[in-house]
């Protein structure tokens, strides 16, 4: 998509004070920093060579050193400082900080977050402060007993031995994991970690971790396996009240058609056990259209439940 001259002007106005105060970046590094391409940044800087104060002699133009691997502005004229923060910039940081509040465990961090929020809000023009109050972020996540030990292990790059309730296999296993990072999603905390039991990167939900302890001397495997699960395409008809299910799992939905009373959806995934279990737990109409083998497995699962009550 081509960008507007306004977008380009905005970026150029930000580039000048940034490069002035941080000389020595390469064009590629600036492109990365400004979410642009090296050729675009080069064009921006070339354009800035021609900008300056009225008179436009060499003393009034922006004075710059420009090569692929070194950019510096020796005289930015009167653009040495960035523009003031926009309302949107302040809103982005303030609401982002608001999202961190419920997950911060350390009182010092909480204090810092609220302090930063107050400083940012003070930068908003008085008339716009009420506008900021119209947006709120609630990022509460279910806290678990082992959150802190997992966070510390990820930070210090050490292994943990965990007892984990696997919903996929309905089993309780002990395994050694190397945590990479923790994230929150839909009210739960997860950690992405290298699992030595499977040799794969896996996502562990914190409330399913029954026990965790550090294993400082564990050796991290050098090879990470990729999942060997075969990806299947499964077509299902759901009643409209199950819209929440496809909204919650957008990454496995490859197509969906919503009509007056139903949703026809195609899932693509490798973990058929998870989908079987999830579909059987949905309220309202759930009809597996294809493939046949999956439809039979779904019916067999429901039959087995019903058989317990006969």
């Amino acid at each position, binding site marked *: 998509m081509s960008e507007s*001259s306004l977008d380009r002007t905005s970026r150029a106005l930000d580039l000048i004070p940034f490069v002035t105060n941080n000389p020595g970046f390469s064009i590629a590094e600036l492109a990365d920093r400004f979410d642009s391409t090296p050729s675009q940044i080069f064009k921006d800087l070339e354009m800035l060579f021609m900008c300056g104060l009225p008179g436009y002699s060499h003393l009034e133009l922006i004075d710059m050193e420009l090569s692929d691997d070194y950019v510096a502005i020796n005289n930015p004229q009167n653009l040495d400082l960035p523009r003031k923060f926009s309302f949107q910039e302040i809103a982005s940081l303030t609401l*982002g900080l608001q999202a*961190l509040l419920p997950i911060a465990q350390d009182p010092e961090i909480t204090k810092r977050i609220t302090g930063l929020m107050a400083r940012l809000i003070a930068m908003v023009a008085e008339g716009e402060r009420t506008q900021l109050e119209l*947006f709120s972020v609630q990022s*509460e996540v279910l806290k678990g007993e082992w959150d802190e030990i997992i966070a510390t292990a990820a930070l210090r790059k050490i292994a943990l031995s965990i007892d984990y309730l696997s919903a996929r296999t309905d089993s309780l296993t002990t395994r050694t994991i190397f945590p990479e990072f923790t994230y929150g999603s839909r009210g739960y905390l997860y950690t992405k970690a290298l699992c030595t039991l499977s040799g794969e990167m896996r996502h562990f939900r914190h409330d399913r971790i029954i026990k965790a302890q550090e294993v400082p001397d564990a050796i991290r495997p050098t090879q990470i396996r990729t999942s060997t699960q075969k990806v299947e395409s499964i077509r299902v008809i759901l009643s409209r009240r199950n819209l929440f299910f496809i909204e919650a799992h957008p990454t496995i939905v490859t197509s969906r058609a919503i009509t007056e009373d139903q949703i026809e959806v195609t899932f693509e995934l490798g973990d058929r056990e998870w989908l079987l279990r999830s579909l059987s737990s949905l*309220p309202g109409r759930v009809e597996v259209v294809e493939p046949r083998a999956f439809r039979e497995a779904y019916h067999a699962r429901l039959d087995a439940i019903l058989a317990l009550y006969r």
Partner: protein
Amino acid sequence: MSTTGSQKSERLINLTMALLASRGFLSKSEIFEVVAGYSGSAETKERMFERDKNDLRDLGLEIEVGTDDPLFDDEAGYRIKPSSYAFQPEEIGELDPLDISLLSLAAAHWQNTLFSRSGQSALRKLESVLPLLESESLSLPLISQEIPESRFESIWSAINTDSVISFTYRAGKDSRRRVEPLRMTLSEGFWYLIAFDLEVKDVRRFKLIRIGEDLEIESTLKKEREFNGTISGDITADRDPAVAIEAVILLRVGRAHELRHISILEAQDSDWDRATTRFESEDELFEALAVAGSSAILISPSDSRNSFIAWIGEKLNV
């Protein structure tokens, strides 16, 4: 970017620098004379300047209009006060590595959205006035979320301009809604719009992801309304109203670990354990039973047991 586009950016930057540098107000004729990039007939230059002025205002620059001597009826001039343009480090105060980490995490929260771009540009502005930002390693998790970007931006804009909007809402069934947006909230990974519904004349909550692409921002401005935080009808609810249930369930030994984890357990026989568990609703109970599959049998309440049998039977009879 075309040459024309590039010339326009160049002219806008030159105009900004000239208006910032001027101690007094610069009249249009002075601007056309001294700022590079204005050419053509008087009318052409006039049109170019009017567009440029609006563009700079869109970039958030405050262009003052006035005359240097109010006693004389001089031609109006323009200037940008340096104090209204430049971000001064004192505005936010000192930032240490921990503050920087928290601000970076706050900006990273928005993942490829309008807010993400704004957050990143704010960080770059900080980096332009502070020595290169050192951050401290922090172990706070990132919260992932669903942002239907085009609708988010439109609604954000409608809230900020007090405009009425209309859209197709895709919940249990499709319906056309005309609402006055009141506020937006992010909860459990989804954005919601809280708005006064002009048809039902009450406050409703709408899940953004269910708002159709046909969203229209009307020119009608919304009325001033008091909102006390109460939402009388939550049309985002997917579940039946909650009625807590205490259930007794038999769990196959060595299986149904999720249910075991939340239950009080006692041994029944060599094959089954007896679990007592509280659920917030029948929906939640049925979901847990179905997930456990043939490793769980609901014993009581008997009404729920009968309902669950019928619930599974209906699924089989589709």
